[in-house]
């Protein structure tokens, strides 16, 4: 399946886009998906490794499977004042 991953903030500039598309097996977990983003979109590698994924607008639990139709977003907070 294709997962369209929303990105925000500095990640938009790094990715050159507000959405990043990756092809994965249904049921992939959030850590594996972050690794795949890091591998396929090198400018996002650091944010993908340190960030978290949100699935359907809530942070994914460790091991949570991602299914067709889920809204997925990479949430990488950059420290700030």
């Amino acid at each position, binding site marked *: 399946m294709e997962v369209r991953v929303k990105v925000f*903030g500095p990640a*938009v*500039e790094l990715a050159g886009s507000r959405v990043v598309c990756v092809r994965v097996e249904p049921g992939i977990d959030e850590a594996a998906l972050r690794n795949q983003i890091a591998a396929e979109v090198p400018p996002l590698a650091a944010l993908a490794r340190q960030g978290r994924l*949100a699935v359907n*607008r*809530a942070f994914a639990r460790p091991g949570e499977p991602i299914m067709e139709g889920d809204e997925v*977003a990479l*949430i990488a*907070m*950059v420290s700030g004042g």
Partner: protein
Amino acid sequence: MNVEIRIVDGALARPAERGPGCGVGAVIAFEGVVRGEENGRAITGLDYEVYEGMAERELERLAVEVATSHGLMAVRVWHSRGFVAVGACSFRLEMESAHRQASLRAVAEFIDRLKRDVPIWKRAVEDRADSSQAPNRAGQQN
């Protein structure tokens, strides 16, 4: 317990006066104001990008958790979306508790967790042209 979350376009106005609930002995209001520099460079303001739907939910979850763990009587949160000029307020947090210690600790904890867990990003705006182009649609022109 009373929890209110508001994400508003642009700078925050001062909230209306209101009487605190029964048993409240301490009311703390924290306001975050946009400073004139970011990483040592002069700016005209900050542009806040909000993950709509998720940010409100995380703010509410955080407010309820912090209110419960510190025994607060009320938590009210306002956060800006879009452009906020230097000197204006982009974040306001109000907490009410029986005694001051609970609210003081809760304010510190809330803001630390907000910065870590709530999907809102800020972008420094260095010149006015940039800010007037898209005052309420953060980041879309990046």
